């Protein structure tokens, strides 16, 4: 059996905390740090930003995230794998090169490309969500295929210190460095399943180590404000121990790992990634010490023939507004205010009205919340205007109105044949070596 590999996850979504990743690199003795920063919609919004020049096509937080990380990564010889390239991995790689240069560092940086398939999807193909043709939903603005571990492997085998992908499947960000270090055969489905399971458990970072878990008095989590992010110690046979750094907040035990094991799983017998179909029905969790859980028993079956694609489309505009009422009759006044807004908006927008809070008939405070969506910006702005007008034209005592409106980018799913996707690697920064 080969010597184990330590891999950590320093971000589980675009808005995650920054400093836990630094702690992981400084004290975790990691082989690889993964930063998972891409939701289904994130890459679509990034493509729009890049398209209209309003911002970078990569994760706008990436610079802030890497500023405190690059020097520790270099000092510890830890590799970085991330999907924060979003819609522009090459642009992200160039930005990181400049950032590194400013610190006197010259890492080998590789950008993974080929996930953008907007020009090659079948626009008349049915969306998974409702069976209707993709193009019938509105203008399609982005389409990104979920790339697998094999697309990252050439960069890792080539000795890249930093690998920046866009839309790669989250578990593939972990499977690729594990496969490379442990010498796994990419066609070995059991090992691909094991590495995918590790990735699935780690991809949401703190969600396996005590985040998204605390329920005071029932499921208590120590020092949640200083939640430690997770590390997996992975053996050559694919079994792993999930743990976190000593001295950090959070907890890693059978309960936290079981919650993450089952998170966003639509079929435990066939968790599909570009790399493998993972069967988690035989997965066993066992305690391996304080904040240590051993995970084993993943089974693999052949990977899907086609790749999943996330398609972004213009889904109209949404306006939202909220206003508070308090004291006797608060809920009745909030409901009246909601009726007023509904009547004023008519059928310009599809509207939802909620009265939130714990007001009773005689005391307490509640908050009216109105949301409306429609094809044009003016309709969304009308929601804002009508809620704001409640100040003087609505029921007694409304306060604290807040409104906002935004264009809505909807997400649909489809698949594309593997032969239509041409993954590539762009090396950035070699000239500085």
């Amino acid at each position, binding site marked *: 059996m080969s010597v184990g590999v330590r891999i950590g996850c320093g971000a589980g979504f675009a808005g995650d905390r920054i400093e836990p990743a630094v702690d992981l690199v400084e004290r975790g003795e990691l082989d690889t740090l993964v930063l998972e920063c891409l939701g*289904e*919609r994130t890459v679509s919004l990034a493509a729009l930003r890049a398209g209209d020049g309003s911002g970078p096509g990569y994760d706008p937080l990436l610079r802030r995230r890497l500023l405190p990380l690059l020097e520790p990564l270099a000092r510890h010889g830890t590799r970085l794998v991330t999907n924060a390239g979003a819609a522009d991995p090459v642009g992200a790689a160039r930005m990181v090169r400049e950032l590194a240069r400013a610190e006197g560092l010259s890492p080998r940086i590789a950008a993974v490309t080929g996930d953008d398939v907007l020009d090659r999807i079948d626009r008349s193909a049915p969306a*998974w*969500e*409702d069976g209707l043709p993709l193009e019938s939903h509105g203008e399609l603005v982005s389409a990104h295929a979920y790339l697998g571990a094999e697309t990252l492997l050439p960069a890792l085998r080539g000795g890249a210190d930093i690998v920046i992908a866009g839309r790669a499947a989250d578990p593939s960000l972990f499977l690729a460095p594990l496969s490379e270090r442990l010498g796994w055969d990419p066609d070995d489905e059991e090992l691909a399943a094991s590495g995918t399971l590790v990735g699935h458990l780690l991809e949401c970072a703190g969600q396996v180590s005590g985040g*998204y878990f605390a*329920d005071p008095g*029932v*499921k208590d989590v120590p020092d949640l404000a200083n939640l430690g992010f997770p590390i997996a110690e992975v053996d050559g046979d694919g079994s792993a121990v999930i743990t976190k750094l000593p001295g950090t907040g959070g907890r890693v035990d*059978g*309960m936290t790992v*079981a*919650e*993450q*094991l*089952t*998170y*966003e*799983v*639509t*079929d*435990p*017998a066939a968790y599909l990634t570009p790399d493998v179909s993972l069967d*988690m*029905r*035989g*997965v*066993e*969790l066992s305690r391996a010490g304080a904040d240590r859980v051993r995970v084993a*028993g993943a089974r693999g079956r052949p990977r899907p023939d086609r790749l999943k694609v996330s398609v972004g489309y213009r*889904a109209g505009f*949404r306006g939202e507004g909220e206003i508070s009422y308090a004291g006797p009759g608060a809920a009745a006044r909030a409901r009246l205010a909601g009726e007023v807004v509904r009547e004023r908006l008519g059928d310009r927008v*599809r*509207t*939802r009205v*909620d009265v*939130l809070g714990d007001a009773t008939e005689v005391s307490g405070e509640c908050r009216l*919340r109105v*949301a*409306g*969506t429609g094809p044009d910006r003016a309709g969304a702005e009308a929601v804002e205007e009508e809620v704001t007008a409640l100040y003087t034209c609505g029921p007694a005592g409304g306060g604290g109105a807040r409104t906002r409106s935004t264009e*809505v*980018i*909807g*997400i649909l*799913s489809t698949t594309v044949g593997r032969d239509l996707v041409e993954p590539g690697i762009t090396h950035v920064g070699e000239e500085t070596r």
Partner: protein
Amino acid sequence: MNVLLHEIAHARAGDKGNLNTVSVIAREPRWYPVLREALTPDRVRGALADRMRGPLTVHRLDTVHALVLVFARSSEDTVTTSLHVDTHGKTLASLLLGTEIPLPPEAGAQAGFWSRASTASSR
């Protein structure tokens, strides 16, 4: 005798495309059979009707004593287009835990659950 699902299980909600998932995990292995009996489509729909469309699928993960509930969302209620405050549906797990479920007398007695069970049912 009824108890809140919250007293014998913990849960986590997630979303994938037009599907919502809620995993419900027995706090102790002995409660797992109780969960399997209790989480009927009618009972789940009773708690989550506002966000559920179509049938409920229940997957078993016996090794960790978990049930994975999967159901479709309305085509107007996707993560990006939803008008709900909680666009993802992340609060659905906690909503479901507020469901009262029947606790077989032998299961309750076994765990010394009677006092807490009566507290729950009087809420």
